[in-house]
């Protein structure tokens, strides 16, 4: 193996994934504005470029050129650090997600940045550290709305992390591995029938994961940390310009990551829903890119669901949110783990 080529290709891979990921973040914002517009019977952004396709560019430029306000009574070091923590934690977890088949070129895995034995734990760990961005931003802003938003958000994220972790255990029990590639490979045999959500009977777990993921990313119906009608804007009330943009990007990056994880864990990752029903076509390049297409399609439909839910459901009240997490999701998550392990013990 040629070491310089290996290092160069790896760096290139990281750069390409980062750029695509950031572009995806920008266009998820556009997707959301367009779809919510259609749901509310209006057009959404349509002025910049054809169908408003250049809107993210204009938004980015606007945020970049805005004045960066620094309120006078904030705790400066933490106030600056908080959005950086939020964004970097949101970007890290994409590094362990496999996008396609394990195809190597010069010894470099083309469709995954890092293939770790403990990939799933890395995602859970990074998510749990991401809380600090929100918690510290609210506290350091020295503003009651920010503080309330961040207290709510830390309590909410800690509570729903339990349900999130438990919902994933069923899948791990089935696979017997925390490696994300192993998890996908197990679902790769008979198309849609062997996906964890259907063939693995993990549909309850998928529902729990969905709810917990919506809460973890602070999205409707669990968007209490930034409930506009009560808290102005919640934890990022005092932020402006690029620092606000970092929080904004972190939220959408988290949505995409959650979609990727749901795809890998429950929806069969890059595997085709038809299995081997249709004969293979095209050259080796098409063979390598087709799984990536399925992966992107699944993540896209997950994002679509996100926006659909936002356009449909009203916000929970805070006590309803906590009650839902602790009294409903957590018990059924435990029951799901027990049922899965019983089934595996007697039939596995």
């Amino acid at each position, binding site marked *: 193996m040629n070491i310089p080529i290996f290092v160069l290709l790896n760096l290139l891979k990281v750069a390409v994934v980062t750029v695509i990921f950031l572009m995806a973040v920008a266009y998820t914002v556009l997707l959301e504005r367009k779809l919510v517009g259609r749901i509310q019977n209006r057009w959404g952004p349509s002025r910049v470029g054809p169908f408003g396709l250049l809107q993210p560019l204009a938004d980015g430029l606007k945020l970049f050129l805005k004045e960066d306000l620094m309120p006078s009574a904030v705790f400066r070091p933490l106030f600056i650090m908080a959005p950086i923590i939020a964004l970097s934690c949101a970007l890290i977890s994409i590094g362990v997600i496999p996008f396609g088949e394990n195809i190597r070129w010069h010894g470099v895995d083309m469709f995954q940045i890092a293939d770790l034995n403990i990939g799933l*734990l890395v995602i859970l760990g990074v998510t749990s550290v991401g809380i*600090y961005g929100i918690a510290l931003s609210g*506290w350091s802003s020295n503003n009651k709305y920010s503080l309330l938003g961040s207290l709510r958000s*830390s309590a909410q994220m*800690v509570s729903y992390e339990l349900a999130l972790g438990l919902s994933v255990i069923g899948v791990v029990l089935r696979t*017997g591995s925390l490696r994300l590639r192993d998890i996908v490979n197990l679902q790769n045999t008979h198309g849609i029938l062997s996906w964890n959500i259907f063939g693995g009977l993990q549909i309850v777990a998928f529902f729990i994961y969905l709810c917990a993921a919506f809460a973890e990313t602070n999205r409707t119906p669990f968007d209490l940390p930034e409930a506009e009608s009560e808290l102005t804007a919640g934890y990022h009330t005092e932020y402006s310009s690029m620092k606000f943009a970092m929080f904004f990007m972190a939220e959408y990056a988290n949505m995409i990551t959650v979609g990727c994880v749901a795809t890998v864990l429950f929806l069969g990752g890059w595997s085709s829903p038809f299995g081997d029903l249709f004969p293979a076509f095209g050259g080796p390049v098409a063979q390598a890119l087709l799984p990536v297409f399925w992966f992107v399609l699944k993540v896209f439909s997950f994002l679509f669901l996100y926006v659909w839910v936002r356009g449909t459901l009203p916000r929970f009240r805070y006590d309803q949110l906590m009650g839902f997490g602790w009294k409903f999701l957590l018990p059924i998550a435990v029951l799901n783990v027990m049922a899965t392990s019983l089934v595996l013990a007697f039939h596995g």
Partner: protein
Amino acid sequence: MNVAIFILFALLCLGGALNLLLQRHPINSALSLIVVMSSLSVLYLLLGAEFLALAQIIVYSGAIMVLFVFVIMLLNAGEEERTHGSRAAYFAGIPGVLALFAVLAGTFVTLRLSFGGTRLGAFLVTTGDLSRVLFRNLLLPFEVTSVLILVAILGAVVLARKEH
């Protein structure tokens, strides 16, 4: 490479621990403790404990320290007041700590030849290895700890509840 990673994260650990000692505001101390814990998890990876490294991040950095930060924010704890403290702690405690460190470090350094060295990959405990020991040989202690956690949760709820 091994040595470079070790030195980098050992220095981060020591710097974070000293910063915990020197900072007057509890939230700064808490953040330096998070730095210590996260760099310790890298050292665990170097020592081949991959599950524990991530458990360290999830449990310590992601759960316990979030609780600390949450309580600091909830009580709005300000700068630490400078009060005299206990004389015994200063006159017996500090030399005692130095003596303790000298004894420990001295013992380890005299035994350095029998310990030898280690590098990344020399010994790897996978999640499977760990859980095999945990759920076959040590099932009873494991179950007992779950009771301990239940008791702790109940205790925390009772202690922190407002009196009516």
